[in-house]
């Protein structure tokens, strides 16, 4: 009897097992980035060779199966991970770059309200340019799109990840935006042997591809920035 009950509970749990989709990407506009008119009034302040810091921001209270972001407010900051490491590898080969580092969250306040919080923290670390990026990952099946933070049945068929990675170059001193970039990559998410670990690993893999594509794009943008401002 007891054995039959255990089997029944196991089957029940297996049938309702789910994977929680990651939080959304941050709206770079929500950062308090100036509008076009205000941005025109700001000025570039390039200090070649520059120190660049890379910071990944996500939507407020972002969490995923494997990570949790820092800070309260209109965005949150995700500590260094494989995606950021990929960007740093790319940046180390860029021209006119004195140093490249991941953004240390130690100097950030708990309450994040705008881009200025990031700039001020970067200034304290003698950073000249911030490369701010965000990753927006959605999961969909042929008949449904899942919101960020939604529960997806592990046995969902035909699921795929769509990843949009976006980035801006921001001048730490003035807030001037040097340029923006983005990359979009998608990949199959599931098969008959779905598990949370498998889905998470697959999500990170697709996000990594998107960030690597983004890294290539921002590299070209950086070359243009150096040519224009140096």
């Amino acid at each position: 009897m007891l054995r039959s009950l255990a089997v029944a509970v196991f089957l029940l749990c297996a049938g309702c097992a789910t994977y929680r989709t990651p939080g959304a990407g941050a709206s770079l506009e929500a950062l308090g980035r100036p509008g076009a008119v205000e941005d025109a009034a700001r000025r570039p302040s390039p200090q070649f060779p520059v120190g660049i810091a890379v910071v990944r921001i996500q939507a407020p209270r972002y969490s995923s199966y494997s990570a949790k972001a820092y800070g309260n407010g209109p965005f949150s900051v995700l500590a260094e991970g494989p995606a950021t490491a990929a960007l740093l590898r790319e940046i180390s080969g860029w021209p006119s770059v004195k140093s490249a580092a991941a953004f240390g969250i130690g100097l950030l306040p708990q309450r994040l309200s705008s881009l200025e919080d990031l700039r001020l923290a970067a200034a304290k670390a003698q950073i000249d340019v911030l490369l701010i990026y965000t990753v927006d990952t959605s999961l969909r099946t042929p008949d449904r799109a899942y919101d960020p933070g939604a529960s997806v049945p592990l046995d969902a068929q035909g699921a795929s990840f769509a990843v949009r990675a976006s980035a801006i170059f921001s001048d730490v001193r003035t807030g001037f935006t040097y340029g923006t970039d983005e990359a979009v990559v998608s990949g199959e998410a599931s098969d008959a042997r779905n598990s949370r670990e498998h889905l998470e690993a697959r999500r990170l893999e697709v996000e990594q591809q998107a960030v690597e594509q983004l890294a290539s794009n921002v590299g070209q943008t950086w070359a243009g920035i150096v040519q224009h401002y140096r």
Partner: protein
Amino acid sequence: MLARVCWLLLAFVLGDAARAAPAPFDLAGPTLNIVVRRGPTILPASEVPDLAEDDHLWIKAAFPASQSADYLMVAVFLRGSTNPPPESWFFSCETWRGDCAREGLTVTVPKGAQQALVFLAPSTSGDMHAIVKAVRGRPGAFVRATQDLNQAALDRSRLESYLAAIHALDGGDPARLKEVAPLLARSLAIKVDEKCLDKIPELQAACLTQAQDSLILNDGQSTSIAQALTGGPAADLVMAASVTPELGYGLYSPYIASVLDIVRILDSFGTAQFQYIPALASLKGDKLALMLNAVPSFYSPKSVMVVALPAVQKTRLPPLHAVDPTEIYCASRTDLVLPVEGAPLAFSTRYAHDITLTLAGKDGQTLRLPARPDAARGGYVVNTGRLQASSLGDSVHGSLEGWWGFEPYQGPGFQLRNAHASAWTLTAGDEDALIAGRQDTVHLRTDGATCVDSIMLRDPAGKELKAEWKPVKTDEVEVKLPLTDAHAGAMSLLISQYGAGQPQTVPIQVFSNVRRLESFAIHAGDAQGVLSGSRLDEVAGLTIGSAAFVPGALSTQGGKDQLVLSTADAQTAAIAPGAGATAVVSFKDGRTSKLAVTVEAPRPQLALIGKNVAPSQSSGDSNIRLVNQDQLPQDARLTFSVRAQIPAAFARDQAIEVATADGSFSTTLNLGNGGLRLENAKVAVATLDPAKAFGFSAFGPLRFRPVVDSVAGDWQALATLVRLPVLKDLQCPESPELACKLSGADLFLVDAIASDPQFTKAMRVSDGFPGTALPVPHPTEGRLYVKLRDDPSVVNIATLPVQSLPKPADDPGAKPDGAGESSSQAGAP
């Protein structure tokens, strides 16, 4: 207050001369990381020349990882000398633990603040209370300390930039050092001993960096930034002190005087618990590295480091200006340098940042080219890479723009030209001036010669030789052509320009080297004449009778050489005009030729009869009595009379030219302009108003000469033009051992002042002294003896009523609180 400060300072420098040279700031202290936020802009402190109310400051002290002593950091704002700051303006931070250790200290500049300081004190009981008590007890002294610290830090930044540049060049090309040193001196206002550049290359750099602290010249820009807090007089006195006999008659720079003043002020604060030591902020990347001149003590009294932050004041933009505003620069040069001067801090600090050369194109488009200061090149170096793709037209105006701290900065403007295909022509007379067999010189003219990169000479066989060239005007270059081994015939010059494609070709004709003598012309009585002909470069000499003439300057015009020959033999005076005389010309190859001499009428000559100087109405303001009749005050009027010698009577068109010895200032007096009036046919009276004729900057010996029919006579000495300073007040303390204070205007016109005519105890005034007060010896029998800058060979007399200089009995620095009375104060006579 001023008198008190003056007395104190003079008492210090005169009474404590034995230790005049201050200890150098060569001990490395901790580093301060400071970030300032104003509105949307965030800058490191290294780019902030001054603070403003409501600025947000983040300060974090960085100590070595192995730091064992705990330091309390205290940020303090002051609000002037006479208004102690409230206790709420003291912000403390324990650098070794808690939030401060992790996040640093964030403060906002309070309303009404005028100065800012940071103290770094070894942690001990009552540390904060002791600092609050010291600052609130004597805020004026700390105001002075911030001013002196800021002044010294700014001065030192110039010295460090200079030394870094010299050391970078040491061991390299000696010619480069010779070229760069004057540019560094100009950019950074550093004194360069030109004799160093005559030494052997291995010794040049060492020589240029000797006596480092005294190399720093007074710089009005940093003084104006630093002195704003006290309104000027104190800084003036600091500089005045630097030219006292005890500080080496101006040998020491104002920097040393500032450092001495800092040490004196902070010495007076010694207590049983703390002693205060100055820390100079030196730029280290975006951080401020603190340099100490005293070893910190961790035994009582413990050492508190005092660091000055930029003053809270309205921004003063740098007085940067173009070295030559009329110069036209080539925008197409890849290494375009725009020479500027007048603001050394633009070169030695990062206060000027994000500077661009902003160009307005003919289509209204604006192009901003990044520009960076380079003291070794004497200006801003512009990256013109993006110009190639733009269409700005042939001529464009640009200006240096950017930011000075948080304030937008509009710098000097420049006229630039783009290289373009334009017609090049030989100047008139040069078309047929080229002779084969010698190096020859021609001038090329175009509508813009600023973009020339190189000039080559192509001979009839197509062989190309490099030609030496230099710009002589904005539209003209001088070219030396290597024709020594050339043959006569058609050749061409190939002119390459920056940014242009193919070089432009200018055809030239080189003539054969036929030697020919045309004439030798000389005025009767003259010792020199002019030989005309061709290939006169081969002339070795000329004789007329026993008078031997030697060659002087050779010029070529219209294909004809003209060679000046002169003699020391007075016999030529005996040759009468029109008399037939023959000259023998000898050539370098030993051959000789005979030539008829043309003797022209003698040049005009005048004899000076007498002169009179009429002083101006304001001449008494100077309080200086000139003792030499030959000295002519610049604001006086000179009347002098002359007698005609040759010709025997004055002609209607005769004039008298008056000029300075170097000819840089001159004027013509004649019957038409009223400068010359005839007494009779042989005697005339001339009147000269130097101020009107020459302006303020003319000085030194004046001379005159007659001019008739464009023929000028010999120069004769007339007077020595001197400009007088205004000596207003003389204040003296009771003690004859203390210096008096002499106030006035234009004191840079004084070379030296003494109490005796032999100048045994003299006070020499340094070059370019801009102050309004000088320390001088007590007068003897009411007299001071003055040598003027414009004529230091003459000792003049100044007579001023002596006023009493009150003794500052209530000076706060003279009697410090508690223990540790300053030896410099107590020892002052």
